[in-house]
């Protein structure tokens, strides 16, 4: 399955089915009085055809392996989501520290001390935004 063209085709088909099948749950109407489901159904249908064409094409071209490394994207997404979660449940200042501290682990030359420094530095910048520039940030 480690074939870029095939995975791309399957991915496109999956997206088209997700939107297409949902759009059939809305009123379709007819062309003279289109319902909310008609246009997304047409667009999903076109995307489905392209997905199928990509899958078929993948059978005829030389397989290309997918180059991926989920470590960094996972760290960044967890940092962003963590920022939102902590800001919601504790406060934004802690959220910003968490964001800077945890995201720094995606960098190549990171150390606990340096990550803490970046976290504190950006928290101070946020305080500057709030108290000097009067930006509406619920820091505390």
């Amino acid at each position, binding site marked *: 399955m480690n074939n870029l063209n095939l995975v*791309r085709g399957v991915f496109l088909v999956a997206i088209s089915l997700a939107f297409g099948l949902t759009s059939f749950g809305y009123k379709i109407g007819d062309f*003279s009085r289109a319902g*909310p489901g008609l246009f997304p159904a047409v667009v999903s249908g076109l995307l489905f055809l392209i997905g199928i064409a990509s899958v078929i094409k993948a059978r005829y071209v030389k397989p290309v392996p997918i180059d991926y490394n989920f470590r960094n994207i996972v760290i960044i997404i967890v940092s962003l989501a963590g920022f939102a979660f902590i*800001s919601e449940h504790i406060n934004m200042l802690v959220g910003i520290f968490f*964001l*800077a501290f945890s995201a720094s682990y995606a960098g190549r030359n990171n150390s606990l001390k340096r990550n803490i420094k970046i976290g504190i530095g*950006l928290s101070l910048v946020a305080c500057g935004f709030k108290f000097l520039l009067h930006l509406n940030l619920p820091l505390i």
Partner: protein
Amino acid sequence: MDIFQNLALGFEHALTIQNLMYCAIGCVVGTLIGLLPGLGPLSTISLLLPITYSIPTDGSLIMLAGIYYGAQYGDSVSAITMKIPHAASIVACIDGYQMTLKGKTGLALFTAGISSFIGGTIAIVVLATLSPALGEVGLLFGPADYCALMLFGFFCVSFVTTGSILNGLAMTLIGVLLGLIGTDVNSGQMRFTMNLPFLMDGVGLISIALGCFGIAEIVKNLDEHTELTPFNGEIKLMPTWPEFKRIIPSALRGSVIGSFMGILPGGGPVLAQFAAYAAEKRFSKYKDEIGYGAIEGVAGQAAADEAAARTSFIPLMAIGIPENAVMALMMAAFIVKGVQPGPNMIATHPDLFWGLVASMWIGNVFLVILNVPLVRYWLSVFKIPFSVLFPSILFFCCVGTFSINNSLDDVYITATFGLIGYIFMRLGLEAAPLMLGFILGPMLEEYFRRALLLSRGNFGTFFTRPISGTLLALLGVFIAWQLIAFFLESRKSAIA
């Protein structure tokens, strides 16, 4: 004479202290961010879009335009000095970097700066002359014609942006579908919201732009472990008179090519630079030196790059069709500010339109007087390690996204699109056509439904109207050509 009067109105508007300040800030900030590795104009605008929210409409658009051409200039600086290009400055790497290796960094940067100025100035004349005329043509368009025009634009841009029409088109369609998330304006039906209240108004444009471009780009740089060596060389900026004389003809040729390429759908700075470089290799008096650090190799492409960046505003402001991803983001900024680009823009917002045109020229002057002498200081940005820089960029992304609606839900959406953008990137699907589809999708649906409502469901309306009929015929030829190429390529691969 109208043009002069209009330009005078524009300068009157752009030369207020406030707008001058926004223009200068845009140029400087754009240059600084544009210098960073992997961050071209597209990522720069998407990252800085939220900071323009609290600024008045004219100021924010002038600032964004400043960010755009500032980022382009910054991009060429990193390409010339360190051979770190982005899409907007690929060609600058060739002769520009060769000049750096020969110890002529200052001359290369001066050439790029002054050529950009010449290119930008000529393009502004083209912009001021052609936009109103095209705007009048735009008024002849009915719903069916707009629908056909958008379809045509989708196909052209999908093709040019990615090289593979299937992938580009697929991304455009995904963008259209994402654009439909939220409440249907005709029926009030919630579509694809998964019963999440914060999706009722749709997905935020900024969240998609930051996620798919900004965050995906940062992670790409982290994955590639790009190591940079700070530039510490001496810089001598001013050229000798014989060197200066070599800049002018190349810059003029590049300006003409760039102005023309910028107007074409799917054109824009990237193609313009290549075309100008090819022209220099063919027509320059010093064509044998090109490729080995010739002034002409930098001057022509820099002028074309800047000229195309300016004239690519023409399709956006005159007929409301963004011709590339950067213009799609600019269009987003216009819409967020309550200005609908299109045939009526010049009539309804003349001060804004002409102010923006005038500010482009002022931005050019700023780039020359601020950036050329200050370039040695700009280069110190490279001394900040990327591992320190990227958490700061993420911080600005989060604060920017939050401050749009004071909502943390937008941060979650941005994070989600960061992941989706990364998957797209790894699957070789470019996010640029997605952005185009996202912006034009809801309009396409509106015009599509309106055209069919007026014709009582008769699809003939798309073919019988002269404008839409012609556009669809061109589209048919284009698709047939692509299909033939696709089958030939598949057959060739199968045989191999």
